[in-house]
């Protein structure tokens, strides 16, 4: 049985009452017109994710559902506390494992899980970034299974994407349905870009004098998230640079401008660690800046997220986040993890292999909904096939129960129907830890589907937090 966020025990829940009326009184031709208008807006503004090399139109739209997803203030406050707590613990963990490694010494997390991890960056051992923050934007994926039951599905400590959708979904809803916003007290989210700019400015390196110069480093316009990169640069009023726009000289990073070199203090990078600096990581990287890591080490520039942050967000380390919260903060976790079996443990392995048909199995480093098995939806042959892959390398997999993801009302062909959703809020960590009231709600548009990824038939919704 799935938790329906609109209907609880057959009654329309308070936060959805007004929306329920709104839907019922909207004629279907108006709805279709509005839907077409929304799509035209997305396309005109250019909010697309680019897919090159697959043929067809390289500019694709992520389907937008006009029915918002709603949280009560009280629900949100609880989520907010849990998210901030988690973001703080993850950063404490990163500080620790690149320093003395107390949590490993204390035996609270296995050493090999940290130090043998692919994402553990030996090049940054001993470096404490400004304000001790490694992950400046923490995207935490949350699912709901009941009225008061929220679970964290995974953490994203590197460069979580999708925040442009959170902002643009809201803009488009406000433009198309101003009445909804006049008649409801909906907490705004558009302060996000200013908070992000402030957060990045707050971690400027010690050598920076005066107001820091911030840039966003993009892999370039062929990247699927290029729109988001240029969107954020525009909102913050900072330059969007590619690796070739930057160079290193005398212990600082500069960008090439029409008025000569200009020093750069904070780089919000949207490229992965291995591509940052060909002198330090992958030698064939054309996207990075030779010598960047030397400047970073000597405190000439800040990089957000800091190189090495990825070790906190793989699916194996995930199982230890509640431990991190207890260890570093001395608190009990406010948001629970989904129960997880780690297949390199014999007991867990045995249990999972016997119950594949009921479980979801994921690759430790996989993402985007690929490389996973959803037991209840898989055929016998698919399960057997996957079992062979697990046997070959058990350490590469974790398993979780099939979650009863909550549903939120969604526009479909025939009207409105429940569809499964998740939530990704974006927590900002600098001199303060901050969160705008909202996030990106992803929805599985296919009936019965539990996969919300845009690459597999997922869409997005505006996410509302009602103020009291």
């Amino acid at each position, binding site marked *: 049985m799935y938790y329906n966020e609109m209907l609880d025990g057959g009654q329309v829940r308070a936060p959805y009452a007004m929306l329920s009326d709104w839907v019922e009184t909207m004629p279907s031709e108006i709805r279709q017109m509005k839907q077409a208008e929304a799509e035209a807006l997305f396309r005109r503004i250019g909010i697309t994710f680019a897919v090159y090399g697959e043929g067809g139109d390289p500019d694709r739209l992520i389907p937008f559902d006009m029915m918002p997803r709603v949280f009560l203030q009280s629900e949100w406050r609880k989520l907010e506390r849990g998210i901030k707590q988690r973001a703080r613990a993850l950063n404490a963990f990163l500080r620790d494992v690149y320093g003395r490694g107390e949590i490993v010494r204390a035996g609270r997390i296995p050493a090999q899980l940290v130090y043998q991890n692919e994402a553990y960056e030996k090049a940054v051992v001993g470096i404490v970034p400004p304000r001790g923050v490694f992950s400046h934007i923490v995207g935490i994926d949350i699912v709901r299974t009941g009225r008061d039951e929220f679970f964290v599905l995974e953490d994203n400590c590197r460069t979580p994407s999708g925040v442009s959708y959170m902002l643009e979904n809201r803009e488009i809803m406000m433009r198309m349905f101003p009445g909804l916003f006049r008649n409801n007290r909906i907490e705004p989210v558009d302060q996000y870009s200013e908070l992000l700019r402030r957060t990045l400015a707050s971690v400027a390196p010690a050598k920076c004098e005066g107001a820091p110069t911030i840039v966003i480093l993009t892999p370039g*316009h062929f990247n699927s998230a290029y729109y988001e990169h240029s969107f954020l640069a525009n909102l913050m009023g900072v330059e969007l640079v590619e690796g070739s726009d930057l160079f290193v000289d005398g212990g600082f990073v500069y960008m*090439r*401008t029409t008025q000569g070199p200009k020093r750069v203090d904070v780089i919000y990078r949207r490229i992965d660690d291995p591509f940052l600096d060909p002198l330090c990581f992958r030698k064939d990287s054309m996207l990075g800046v030779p010598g960047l890591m030397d400047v970073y080490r000597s405190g000439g520039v800040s990089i957000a997220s800091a190189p090495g942050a990825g070790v906190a967000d793989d699916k194996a380390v995930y199982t230890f986040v509640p431990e991190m919260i207890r260890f570093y903060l001395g608190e009990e976790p406010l948001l629970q993890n989904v129960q997880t079996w780690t297949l390199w443990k014999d007991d867990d392995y045995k249990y999972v292999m016997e119950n594949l048909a009921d479980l979801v199995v994921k690759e430790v480093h996989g993402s985007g909904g690929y490389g996973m098995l959803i037991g209840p939806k898989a055929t016998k042959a698919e399960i057997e096939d996957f079992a062979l892959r697990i046997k070959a390398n058990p350490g590469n997999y974790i398993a979780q129960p099939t979650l009863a993801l909550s549903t939120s009302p969604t526009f479909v062909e025939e009207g409105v129907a429940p569809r499964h959703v998740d939530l990704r809020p974006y927590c900002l960590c600098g001199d303060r830890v901050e969160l705008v009231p909202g996030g990106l709600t992803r929805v599985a548009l296919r009936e019965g589907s539990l996969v919300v990824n845009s690459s597999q038939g997922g869409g997005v919704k505006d996410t509302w937090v009602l103020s009291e």
Partner: protein
Amino acid sequence: MLSRTAANLFWMGRHLERADTAARLLDVGARITLLPNTDEGYRNEWESLLRASGAQQPFAERYGDQINQENIESWLFFDGDNPSSVASCLERAREGGRIVRTALTSQVWDALNTAYQELRQMQRRRGKVDAAELTDFTMRHSSTVRGAINATQLRNDGWHFINLGYSLERADATSRLLDVKYYVLLPRVEFVGSGLDNYQWQVILRALSAHRAFHWAYGGEITAAKVADFLILNGESPRSLLTSLYEAVWNLDGLVRRYGEGVPANASERARQTLESLMARDIEAIFDEGLHEFLTWFIGEIGSISTAVHEDYFSGRM
């Protein structure tokens, strides 16, 4: 402003102007086929068009000696192999615009993007669209983009880079078109001053969308000296070398004023020298010097100014 952003704006301007040139050539070509045929067919005129776009060689590589309307249309409008085709130029202008989205107003982006989306639809109907429609399409969209730039862009350094691209490209295109006259016609001395000679000067006027403007400005018979004067030294003619270069100088001066002394101004200086040198000539002097020799000098100057723009602003000097 990032050097790369400035370079993209500059090249966006150049590509938009180049698309316009390709479309005007296509228009002329289509017009020629409406006139009574000659013994040799239209071959000579078609070839002069290819020369005008500097494309005889690559065209031959692709189509051999099949110089006919269908192939020329395809070459000038659709072909991705031709870096100066309307489609290539619009795609690159739009891609450049996408890269520097933050430096463009939404109206400019909208106009560029709409042109691109409609171009994709045209490409699907390739072979079923007539030349007039292709020309109209290009003229309409290039005017819309140009209008959006004029009406909405901030008058900042980005504005100067876009317009610098437009004006240098235009100066280059006009001089190359004029040079065609030398290559195709002048060697055949017996034609000079003949009806055919004058007709071909008309073709050049038409290629620059200037045949009506010419009559307003000069009246009377079309002579080589008048046409050349109109296209080289007339400050009212929108595509003349003088007007184009003057606009380039104006935009470079704007950059120099904005950026002050810390930034080298070699491009501006070079452009000003060229402008003075151009203004010191009259059309008789140019004909005495030799039209081809003059144009070779001028095209070289435009190239040097372009290089200096690159060094002054796009290299992110150390």
